[in-house]
């Protein structure tokens, strides 16, 4: 006998995904860490209101406050110009994470566009995939370095040093990292196209545009989400690598990679100045990778429910 009240409430797909995600302990821990890091860089500056770029105009004062060890006034100490390290870490984190998110968005948009077009329109498949292969054959890090070197000064002249560099780096990373997403999306679209519901939709005369937006795209969301998560991680690493090679943001503009680069010169006397930004980058990337891992498991219907 089944009682009416014993019938479970209908479950949505996303609550299923969430309950599967919760069983991945590493991913949950990583999500917590990532949220904490986001809070640290976004809410943190409202609590700790020190100016990250403030240099004491009085030279004698400046010399007295520089290279301080951690204290109540400066919880992470100060750098060689007497700037507060905690505030710089927050500001740097804002920039690093913003670069990661925006660059990921660009690369996912590009990748999805190319992938869906290549998978859906047979005539475009060949040329677009050749293009993807060409991009995969480019030496990306050297090209990124060259792009930043050549376009940094003109762009900062027209758009200001921060905005120009930010746009350039985000754009350069996005343009050089869309290929994996495009390949995955194309594969998924090719498989979806053979399914009955697509045939049904086509038989009632659905135009291509609505076909893609209503039927194809919602079904490729899960691989896109996974590669988006992993894209954040690689974009953050690339940005900090560029900054570390001295080809990223200008020196007075802190990002985690830049802080690490600046700290290397003082590694003998003040090792913590290298450790903090390095740990922040590593924690962010590690947590994002774990979240991606958990998402991949949670979004795979073959694993879910087991």
């Amino acid at each position, binding site marked *: 006998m089944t009682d009416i009240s014993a019938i479970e409430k209908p479950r949505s797909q996303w609550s299923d995904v969430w309950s599967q995600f919760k069983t991945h302990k590493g991913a949950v821990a990583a999500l917590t860490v990532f949220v904490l890091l986001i809070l640290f860089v976004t809410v943190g500056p409202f609590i700790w209101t020190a100016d990250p770029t403030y240099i004491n105009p009085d030279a004698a004062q400046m010399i007295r406050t520089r290279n301080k060890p951690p204290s109540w006034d400066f919880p992470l100490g100060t750098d060689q110009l007497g700037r507060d390290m905690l505030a710089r870490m927050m500001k740097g984190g804002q920039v690093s994470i913003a670069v990661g998110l925006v660059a990921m968005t660009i690369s996912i948009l590009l990748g999805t566009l190319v992938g869906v077009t290549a998978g859906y329109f047979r005539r475009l498949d060949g040329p677009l995939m050749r293009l993807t292969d060409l991009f995969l054959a480019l030496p990306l890090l050297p090209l990124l370095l*060259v792009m930043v070197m*050549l*376009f940094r000064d003109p762009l900062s002249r027209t758009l200001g040093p921060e905005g120009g560099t930010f746009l350039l780096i985000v754009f350069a990373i996005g343009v050089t990292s869309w290929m994996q997403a495009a390949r995955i999306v194309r594969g998924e679209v090719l498989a979806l196209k053979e399914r009955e519901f697509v045939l049904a939709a086509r038989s009632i005369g659905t135009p291509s545009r609505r076909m893609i937006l209503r039927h194809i795209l919602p079904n490729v969301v899960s691989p896109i989400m996974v590669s988006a998560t992993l894209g954040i*991680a690689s974009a953050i690493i690339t940005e900090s690598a560029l900054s570390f090679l001295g080809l990223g943001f200008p020196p007075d503009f802190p990002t985690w990679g830049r802080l690490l680069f600046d700290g290397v010169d003082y590694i003998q006397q003040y090792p913590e100045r290298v450790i903090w930004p390095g740990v922040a980058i590593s924690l962010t990337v590690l947590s994002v*990778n774990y979240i991606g891992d958990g998402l991949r498991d949670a979004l795979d219907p073959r694993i879910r429910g087991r």
Partner: protein
Amino acid sequence: MLTFTIRRLLLAIPTLLFISLVIFLLVDFAPGSPMSQIPLTVPPEVRLRIIEAMGANEPIFVRYLLWLKQFFWVEPLVMIDGIFGTTWSEGMQRIVSWQSRSPVMDIIAERMPQTLTVVGSAYVIGVLIAVPIGIYSAYRQYSWFDQIGTFIAMIGFSVPTFFTGVVLILVFSVNLGWFPSIYNTSLRVTDWDSFLQQVRQMAMPVAVLALYNASQISRYMRSSMLDNLAQDYVRTARAKGMSERVVVLKHVLRNSLIPVVTVIALGIPTIFGGAIITEQVFKVNGLGALLINAIQGSDLPMVQTLTFIFAVLIVLFNLIADVLYGMLDPRIRYD
């Protein structure tokens, strides 16, 4: 197989031409090129002479064709001359660096050994570590060894190499003083002492790169082993009464190595690119450092040639990986 290889080789030519054009145009059309960096106080006729001396006054396609000819015709001839003592390349103009005024290829040949010793040994060590770890963690899936292996691999490719490098410097050269933090390129290995010195200065960069490579390859090895361990032929082999050792190390390992070998081949060119950062951290005077210097000095011929060499490596190893895959796995037929 042979027709496939030939077809792929022929296809590689337009790919490479296109890539070289992209690199050439990107570097040349950029507003920050060195021509704009000549100070404005230099009188116009001197400026013209400077540009002429750099060979930058010709139209772009002439320079592109010249560069192509130099890269694909003159430089190989020079190499042949160097080996056989012929004089075919006499009087021909080679690709010349704007910074040092000496042929680009000579500088690259000078820097190549450093990169190859450090990066090459790191890659070999990484593979040697990764394969056994992958085998064992797949064989004992979800055991504590597997869990720890997964965690370390995750750290290995999440922590950027410049941070691992800096931490190693901090621990082993600043605090403990075991290894030198700067790679000494002029060291010649002549006796036991200098060999030990070489090993000590290579230890840290090799460790950084090996950790990074091993963490990736061990993941591939593990998942490939897991795929094969679930196959029917494994059950058959066990049912025949073969020892576990033979089943795992002969039947399963051989089949799981097929995709891993291609991954290893595909990873070789990215190593050259990734080593740029590690070389910078440990001040190894290799190809990566050469590229960074050339970029900072706006040495266009050097940047173009080096980037193109990286591209050639990528295309070449892609081809090798595909051919290897077809040779190792008889189920794959390209023709």
